[in-house]
């Protein structure tokens, strides 16, 4: 690692630590408050503007959420859609980004133009729905994965990363008899671990947080992902909002405010746990080692 021993360097390092730690505290405190709030009572949430440890610990909000029979199943749906969906995303994105990173490919600019144009002009909700319907994807998990199989934004950035990889390796592989698939598989992908990790994370978080696609395309409640269920849990607990439309003879009022916070905790913590596993790939360069070997 690089070391800086001058006074200026030390001051900089100190400042750097202080600023970053302050920033980290600012970003995480509200989240801690949400977690703490999810274990508190509604009364405490109303009376204290901010706290990290609740005075009375209450599990009511979690009991209410987990009493929902669909929650565990929907968690399974979300995990499934996130994993398979991310694989689909990565497959489509990588296979398309690689040829497009080759400057000598005929028609490359036209395809890229097509991709960029599609970022700026969209047909809107109804036409897209018609396509999904026409393909027979309605009410299948594919409807949650295929219509967003490639993010043009991610594709272009991956393409750009591929372009930056040293060409010597590729040539060496070709001399060894690899075809294009081999070059992608043996050279590009292993060298792009940070990129694979980054975009897997982007796609995975996208799938995890998505509820609009499910609301539009999935009719069977047993196929709804977690986020849809959590939204409904919140909506149901806020009786004031739904009062005009929902007439539930058996309505038992849940702690509305803490339920809101607990749904955030339930919806966020599983995907947050993914990050540390992927993180090692962003922080370490892989290029050096592989170039040498």
């Amino acid at each position, binding site marked *: 690692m690089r070391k800086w021993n001058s006074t200026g360097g030390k001051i900089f390092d100190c400042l750097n630590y202080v600023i970053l730690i302050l920033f980290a505290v600012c970003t995480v405190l509200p989240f801690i408050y949400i977690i703490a709030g999810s274990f508190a009572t509604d009364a405490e949430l109303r009376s204290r503007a901010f706290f990290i440890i609740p005075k009375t610990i209450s599990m009511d909000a979690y009991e209410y959420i987990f009493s929902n029979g669909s929650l565990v199943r929907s968690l399974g749906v979300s995990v499934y859609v996130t994993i398979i969906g991310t694989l689909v995303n990565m497959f489509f994105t990588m296979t398309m980004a690689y040829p497009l990173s080759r400057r000598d490919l005929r028609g490359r600019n036209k395809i890229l133009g097509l991709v960029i144009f599609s970022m700026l002009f969209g047909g809107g909700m109804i036409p897209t729905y018609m396509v999904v319907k026409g393909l027979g994807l309605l009410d299948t998990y594919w409807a949650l994965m295929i219509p967003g199989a490639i993010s043009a934004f991610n594709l272009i950035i991956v393409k750009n990363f591929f372009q930056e990889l040293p060409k010597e390796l590729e040539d060496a592989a070709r001399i060894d008899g690899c075809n294009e698939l081999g070059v992608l598989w043996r050279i590009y992908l292993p060298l792009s671990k940070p990129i694979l990790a980054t975009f897997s994370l982007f796609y995975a978080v996208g799938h995890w947080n998505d509820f609009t696609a499910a609301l539009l395309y999935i009719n069977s409640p047993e196929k709804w992902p977690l986020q849809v269920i959590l939204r409904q849990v919140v909506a*149901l607990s806020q009786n004031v909002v739904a009062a005009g439309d929902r007439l539930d003879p058996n309505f038992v009022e849940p702690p509305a405010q803490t339920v809101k916070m607990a749904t955030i905790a339930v919806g966020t913590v599983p995907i947050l746990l993914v990050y540390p596993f992927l993180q090692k790939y962003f922080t370490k360069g892989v290029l050096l080692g592989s170039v040498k070997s």
Partner: protein
Amino acid sequence: MKLMKRALPVVVSSLLVAGITAGCSNNEAASTKSKKGGESDSNKPLDITIMMPSFDQELADENSTVVKKLEEETNTDIHLRWTPNDTYPDKFSITLASGDLPDIMVSASSYVKAAQSGEFWDVGKYIDDYPNLKKLNPIIRQNASINGTLYGIPRIRALGRNGIMIRKDWLDKLGLQEPKTTDDLYKILVAFKNDDPDGNGKDDTYGMTVSQFSGPWDNIQTWFGVPNEWGVEKGKLKPYFEFPEYQEALDYFKKLFDEGLINKDFAAMPPSKWYDDIQNNKAGVIVDVVDSAHRIEKELDKLEFGENSTAEQQEQKTFMTALGGVADPDGKKHYLPTSGFSNLLLIPKPAVKTEAELKRVLKFIDQTNNQENQRLLFHGIEGKQYTLDGNGYVVATTDKTVLKDLQDLNQFQTFIPEDLTIKPQQTPLREKEAEIQKENEKYVVGNPAAGLISETYSRMGAQLDQIIDDARIKYISGQIDKAGLKAAIEQWKSQGGDQVTKEMNQLYSKTKK
């Protein structure tokens, strides 16, 4: 490359499917619908598809015992198309666009244009033939119509739901009576702020809590005699804010704000925080739907007696009282009604093709309003979803697998002529709420232009309303003065308001004839 092997066939086959099915969407509806029985086989069960919003995830399906029972009662074969309430407006548009229409669909706000173009049956012509439907409350009927035409059966809700809720114990402590007029209310608010109603020796209370939500202002100004949306002067419609009572009400609001009787930062307060202060011993008054009273009571009970206090403990003290509203300074009562309905059951013409079919569908809707069926759809089957206790109150089962058969079926209930379901056991406060809702119907101010929709308003209405609503808040907070208020009204007029008034008056004179 295993993935590729698996994904390619999917992509290729999807492409083929696209070629075949794209463009056929309009034919599908036609082919599925031909099986519908006409008059000739009227003994056969009526095949009926219903699209409606859902709130839960475990929903009644076609195997539900409750649905089966209703099918027997009404001689129908019911198919349910649930759509999460969250996305209902989108799905409504998509369903119209796809052409694959159900026989009955709950409306979304965008239905007006489609209705005016003849997409749905004009049921107003027919409902007088049905024993229940013909008793539809005329005010609600007018509210639910578009320019005099009723395009669906409204789902009835309480008309007089609005009211005012006050801390009873604070009133008692300060020796005050429930307010009768707006002046009384003002005095109470002053006392709640200055006279330490919670007796803790600290200056930590204020009068009334308000938020970004405009409801309280709309309610209170109606108490002052401001018309509901439109007023009639010399046989002509005039917007409510051009009546002198409006200025009177606004000055009252401003006084409340200036004297700190309402929360200063209300204009920024998200509606989700609105109830915090009254449930937290900080504010003593709130104006909203009157059935909130028992919710506030429950929170205050918890605050006073602890989270797990028993019903006996909670009955020791009553915190809240509710009123339908207060009278204007002259002692007259005018309250703001709600629309009295929540969306319509529409009957699309592409699905229900002939008058004979329509009549059978209407008969079905009428039958759902029989007392027996209302209870079936609302409570389920006795002995399964609910039992009756010694006093005849409903006790619902807690068994979720049994409740599933009932879940959200009340979404196609219209409650015409009235709600005939059995009430659960009530606290005195809840009984009072129900009384107030009934009593309020005597004092509600109808909107003379209800059900009239002007072309300009349907295009710019939200924008125009906002000019006036914003000006009201700015005036209360002191950001503008009377001249600024006037300027805002001029702006409203020039940006389309005058046009709206003109169009509304044309429509109004037409329906009057």
